[in-house]
């Protein structure tokens, strides 16, 4: 049963992520992106990574996407006030997209089929085990990333302050 659910959800996530790109209305794009994240949450649950699933749910679906939606609703983007894109921009876009595809294909080549036995501890995704891993072997990267986030936060606060007010 697990694999069939996986294929179903995987198909859904590919479908929704395609819809993100192809839908004309930016708000619809965001809503499809939210659905895509929801399917990711289901993937995490299938992997027995409950903590990651819930955190993905809260942080990505519940907070970041709300902010995206928020900004897009405020901007009220539609066809009338969309600026005309120059040919140069389009060419740059195509090149950037092709670079991404090349990278993806390159990384696909080095990937072998997933071996379920690799995951020695199936309960790794539970809160207790994950916490022990994060604050044990991965202590330094974890703390470094938190400092990175903190500096981003401080930077954002600085940007919102007007000059001379600092």
């Amino acid at each position, binding site marked *: 049963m697990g694999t069939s659910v996986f294929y179903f959800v995987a198909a859904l996530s590919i479908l929704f992520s395609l819809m993100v790109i192809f839908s004309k209305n930016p*708000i619809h794009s965001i*809503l499809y992106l*939210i659905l895509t994240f929801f399917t990711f949450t289901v993937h995490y649950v299938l992997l027995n990574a*409950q*903590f990651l699933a*819930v*955190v993905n*749910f*809260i942080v990505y*679906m*519940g*907070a970041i996407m*709300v*902010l995206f*939606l*928020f900004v897009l*609703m*405020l901007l009220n983007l539609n066809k009338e006030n969309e600026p005309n894109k120059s040919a140069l921009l389009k060419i740059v876009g195509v090149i950037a997209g092709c670079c991404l595809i090349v990278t993806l294909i390159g990384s696909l080549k080095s990937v072998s089929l997933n071996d379920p036995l690799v995951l020695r501890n199936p309960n790794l995704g*539970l*809160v207790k085990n994950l916490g022990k891993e994060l604050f044990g072997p991965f202590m330094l990267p974890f703390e470094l990333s938190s400092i990175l986030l903190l500096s981003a936060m401080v930077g954002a606060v600085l940007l919102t302050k007007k000059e001379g007010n600092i």
Partner: protein
Amino acid sequence: MDLTFVIEKFALVTILFAISLVIAMYSTYAERKVAAFLQDRLGPDRAGIFGLLQPLADGVKMFMKEEIVPTNANKWLFMIGPGLAMLCACIGTAVIPWGQDIVIGGRTIALQVTDINVGVLYLFGVVSLGVYGVMIGGWASNNKYSLLSAIRAASQNISYEIAMGLSIIALLLVTNTMSLKEIVAQQHGWHWNVFYQPLGFIIFLICAFAETNRAPFDLPECETELIGGYHTEYSSMKLGFYLFAEYINMFVSSAVMATLYFGGYNYPGMDWVAIHIGGNLAPIIGTLVLFVKIFAFIFFFMWVRWTIPRFRYDQLMGLGWRGLIPFAIANIIITGLVIAIKNF
């Protein structure tokens, strides 16, 4: 997974759904009655004795009203909005332990739909998802007032989620687990978490008011500034769903507060009851106690609504970011220090 298990869970879900709907229905009645009593009035008393059939009359009225979809509204999203609000309100009940295990015919039945080991985070996720119903509904109405209030709702919810999460972290430091079942089991008898986390409880309570969009934080639906709020364009049962979702949210957050801080189904003297009465009756009494706590919280929600006037928007944001969050962080630090000293 045997069939009885599925039937058992299905029955539990159905009962919970029915209970939340009935409680939401009668919350509308209770709200009007409480408001009336606090203002020296009588409240609705025409439909049935003491007006007890008033919710039914209101429901019939809602159903019979004309369904209007604005011409330029986004039809699909306009319909999804209220449904999403209702869904997010209802699924919170799944992880709350409603009572101790009951034994029927040799089968132990847990009065909890599912005991996931990240129960607290699940609740938190459901709360954060709740804002989508409001935002989608407000945007799809194609109305400036609705959009404004949807944006207000979103920023309010995000701001207060942070303080709420921080207050929960302090609680988790005390409980050492995220499973709601264990959190409740730890609060046996009188050992309620509110005595260990009073500041955390007050912060959580204030945030619960903000998250359920109840007065004094009901800015997303303030009539004087935004006509009706995010549901300005809604009519008939879609409007009913939004209003219902608010009351179910209130019920669920009352249940969460009772579970996290007020011991859930625990009450002083429960051991004595378990020994002398025993059987299935003791857990049922526990469940009743939980519901008494929930009703007390719902009453408190209403009591506060008819006491405190609405905040101004900048006051709301100031309270959230400059008031509650520093307090919550201080609470975490103090709790952590106390626990560290204890274990030292």
